[in-house]
């Protein structure tokens, strides 16, 4: 590099380094990968009695780590009524801060700390406006020291320029959970390699050569977090052959262990993780929502959250939105509390009864209907936070209303994301099917949706830095209010409200079949609530089902229907349940697709014969053993540790079987795949080394599941003939 050269390119990676301060990797427009260094001191704050702060000062001065101490009074704790004097501790070398802070917190547990455990990427983002793959112009000295850094675009741009990434895909030839892999399969562009796993030495030598030659930006693996990279690292150590998984030389990789934890009321399992420096590693099997939004979605969540790509790929709910709030807080000079101490303001028992409620969930009118419009509030809860300015420092009143007041931290954080999502949704709506941008836009849109969906739960999450019960309650309260106003508007326009579910309404009025028929009521709802609402579609027919337990009882969110454009929507039926075998789900879906050809509810009986024939074909295939075993697989999540089941569920029995045969221990939250078999124990775990005997399959059980799924459709549509014994499948109407 020439003295004080100027570089432009994409910011690729950023991390603390004991020598560099902060290491930046830039994908240069010149096609090269530049390693740069930047001085980046970081500051945290302590508050408390002056005498204790003075003791802290003395302690810090006695430490070998270089720090600068100062008094700070401008920054504000959102949960405190007034500003308080703070001790600002400026740590010159970013990599020193975590350890120093741990020492401080241990010695001075009584002090209150701020900005103490903020991710380096967020600190950098707050100062320079950086984010992963930001376009940057950099002035750097001959040794790569950055003297000036300018970000040229914004995470809110709809069409960010994308660099060409060099991707190396790597996966074992056999899923290690199912068998013993013999080789690694590698792909990059048109290159294909197959490297036998044994003996280890040539594997390591070849892999090293490939990594050096291709110098990939992204290692995209299958089971890389939990199996492949740990294996390669172990082998490399065993044979004393260093493997350049990192682009940055001389660094170990970052590893995190597996764990089970509670999230949103259910137990979640997270496998171990391996992350690299100067290069990304993404494990498709361990990446959150990979199937929904793939690399494009990962990049989008990295851009909008400013979190490194490798972390964005493994994001847990809440972390994304929390990062955005922290970044916004740093920008605004709002203190980020280390431990959240702020708790609920006292309320009376009566107020508790009024406020401790969830979203509005209406019991639907059971039956089949035509002329039904489905209306949705767009990202309802985030919209409410933005429109009603709900944030800890705006202290929500008991009843919030849309407001134009100076927005607080939470609305400021959400508004650009919400705007971007709405803009992208509008663009997608107007985009023809062949447009190549469609797939990427869709992936990005679902990544944004996921961030926005979690933002509401996050507001009420106990550890959320800027969470607050009152804010959480104010959001649901206005959500219910909005649905009430929407119901009143709809009834004023002559509609019957068939169903309401948190942010959606189903409106029925005989003859309402065109978007124009719904236009006035949409406008009216917007006016009365101040929230954007859209027509999701008009149903040719839609059926609302009763409870599976009691047919007199309506249950929310259990329906299926066919839109005018032919698309189908199903909620709460077998084909939507994660534990239904694929065969049952697709059998049910085929039935619905047949009825979807009907133009209205009246025409439904015309398609009964076709549906029954389809069901007959599927059941015949089952009894003749023609259904592939994979399609009969049931997948269930373990809800607790194995020895804590009193009467083991089928999933637990399958997991016990696995433990007995393979010694493999499954953890709560992990999923088990199995088949129903005859006799004891009634299941066959799919991941057992022995394949199941197809004759052992419990066909009667699968037949029952199929008939139950068929009944959901046929009874829901009320097309069953009065004399069930005349049907070719006499059994399915018998309970």
């Amino acid at each position, binding site marked *: 590099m020439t003295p004080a050269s100027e570089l432009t390119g994409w910011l690729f990676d950023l991390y603390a380094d004991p020598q560099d301060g902060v290491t930046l990797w830039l994908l240069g427009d010149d096609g090269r990968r530049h390693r740069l260094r930047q001085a980046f001191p970081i500051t945290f704050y302590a508050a408390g009695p002056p005498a204790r702060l003075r003791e802290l000062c003395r302690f810090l001065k006695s430490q070998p780590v270089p720090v600068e101490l100062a008094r700070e009074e401008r920054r504000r704790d959102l949960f405190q009524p007034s500003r308080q004097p703070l001790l600002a501790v400026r740590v010159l070398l970013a990599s020193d801060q975590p350890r120093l802070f741990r020492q401080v917190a241990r010695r001075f*547990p009584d002090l209150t700390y701020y900005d103490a455990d903020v991710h380096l990427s967020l600190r950098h983002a707050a100062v320079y406006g950086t984010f992963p793959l930001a376009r940057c112009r950099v002035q750097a000295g001959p040794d790569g020291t950055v003297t000036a850094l300018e970000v040229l675009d914004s995470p809110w741009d709809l069409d960010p320029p994308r660099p060409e990434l060099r991707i190396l895909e790597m996966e074992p030839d056999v899923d290690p959970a199912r068998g013993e892999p013999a080789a690694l399969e590698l792909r990059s562009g048109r290159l294909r390699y197959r490297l036998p796993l044994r003996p280890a030495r040539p594997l390591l030598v070849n892999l090293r050569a490939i990594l050096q030659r291709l110098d990939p930006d992204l290692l995209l693996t299958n089971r890389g977090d939990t199996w492949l990279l740990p294996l390669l690292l172990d082998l490399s150590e065993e044979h004393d052959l260093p493997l350049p998984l990192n682009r940055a030389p001389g660094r170990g990789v970052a590893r995190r262990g597996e764990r089970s934890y509670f999230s949103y009321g259910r137990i979640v399992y997270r496998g171990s993780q391996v992350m690299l420096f100067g290069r990304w590693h993404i494990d498709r099997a361990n990446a959150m929502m990979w199937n929904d939004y793939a690399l494009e979605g990962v990049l989008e969540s990295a851009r909008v959250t400013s979190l490194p790509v490798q972390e964005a790929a493994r994001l847990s709910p809440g972390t994304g939105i929390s990062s955005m709030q922290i970044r916004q807080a740093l920008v605004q000079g709002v203190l980020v509390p280390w431990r*959240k101490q*702020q*708790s*609920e303001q*006292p309320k*009376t*028992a009566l107020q508790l*009864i009024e406020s401790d409620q969830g979203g509005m969930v209406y019991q639907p009118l059971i039956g089949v209907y035509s002329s039904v419009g489905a209306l949705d509030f767009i990202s309802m809860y985030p919209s409410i936070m933005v429109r009603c300015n709900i944030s800890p420092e705006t202290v929500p009143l008991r009843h919030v209303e849309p407001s134009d007041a100076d927005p607080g931290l939470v609305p400021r954080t959400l508004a650009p994301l919400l705007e971007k999502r709405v803009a992208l949704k509008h663009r997608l709506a107007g985009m023809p099917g062949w447009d190549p941008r469609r797939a990427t836009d869709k992936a990005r849109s679902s990544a944004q949706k996921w961030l926005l969906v979690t933002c509401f739960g996050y507001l009420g999450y106990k550890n959320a830095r800027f969470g607050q*019960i009152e804010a959480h309650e104010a959001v649901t309260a206005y959500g219910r209010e909005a649905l009430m106003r929407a119901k009143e508007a709809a009834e004023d326009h002559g509609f019957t409200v068939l169903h309401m579910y948190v942010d959606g309404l189903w409106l029925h009025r005989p003859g309402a079949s065109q978007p124009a028929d719904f236009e006035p009521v949409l406008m009216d709802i917007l006016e009365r609530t101040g929230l954007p609402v859209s027509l999701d579609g008009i149903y040719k027919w839609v059926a609302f089902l009763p409870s599976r337990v009691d047919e007199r009882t309506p249950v929310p969110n259990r329906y299926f229907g066919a839109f005018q454009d032919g698309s189908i929507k199903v909620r709460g039926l077998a084909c939507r349940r994660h534990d239904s075998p694929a065969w049952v789900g697709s059998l049910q879906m085929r039935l619905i697709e047949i009825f979807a050809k009907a133009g209205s509810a009246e025409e439904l009986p015309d398609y009964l014969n076709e549906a029954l024939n389809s069901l007959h074909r599927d059941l015949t295939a089952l009894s003749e053993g023609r259904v592939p075993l994979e399609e009969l697989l049931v997948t269930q999540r373990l809800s607790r540790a194995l020895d804590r089941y009193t009467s083991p569920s089928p999933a637990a029995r399958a997991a016990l079987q696995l433990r007995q045969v393979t010694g493999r221990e499954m953890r709560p939250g992990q999923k088990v795949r199995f088949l129903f078999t005859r006799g004891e124990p009634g299941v066959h775990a799919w991941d057992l080394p022995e394949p199941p005997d197809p004759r052992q399959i419990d066909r009667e059980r699968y037949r029952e599941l199929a008939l139950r799924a068929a009944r959901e459709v046929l009874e829901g549509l009320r097309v069953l003939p009065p004399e069930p014994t005349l049907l070719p499948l006499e059994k399915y109407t018998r309970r």
Partner: protein
Amino acid sequence: MNELALPIEPQLLVVVAPHAARDQMLELAATLAVRGPLRVVDAGNQFNAYPVARAVRRHTARMRAALENIRLARGFTCYQVLAMLEQLQPSSQPTLVFDLLATFYDEDVPLPQSLELLDQVLPHLSALSKAGPVVVSARPPGTVVAERLPLLQKLLDGADAVYPLLPPEALQAARRLPAPRQLGLPLDPD
């Protein structure tokens, strides 16, 4: 023993029972609410107001007024619980703390830190109990966090009186407390 005597005197009562004696505590809150104002700190997400309303209604027709007598706040982490108790001013009104140790049993917080925080909590409870009656309910730790039993011991040591809604011998054991594993104390199933 299934009923809690009505606390009138300034003192610190600790009730130890499975589920932190939730039903008895709710009943107690209702009885007190009929007589006058009281304060509730719900540290275990336990304050189901419906049974309270029903119990109040049995005593008085002025149900709403009685429910207005109860001022409560909920804490979902031990840091919040500490902050809430710090903010409570001493008062002659009764104070009920529901399931005090629930958040201290949370595995996300290392045990030494939980103990340290509880050390900060106890002086506040004792200061409050100089001005008015304070009833604290607690449960034994669940089987998965059995090693957290010292938290319960610490709480019992600071109490003026302990209501043993547990079998008395189990409570005796808890007060002597050699090592959690050797105790006959029934651990909470959940």
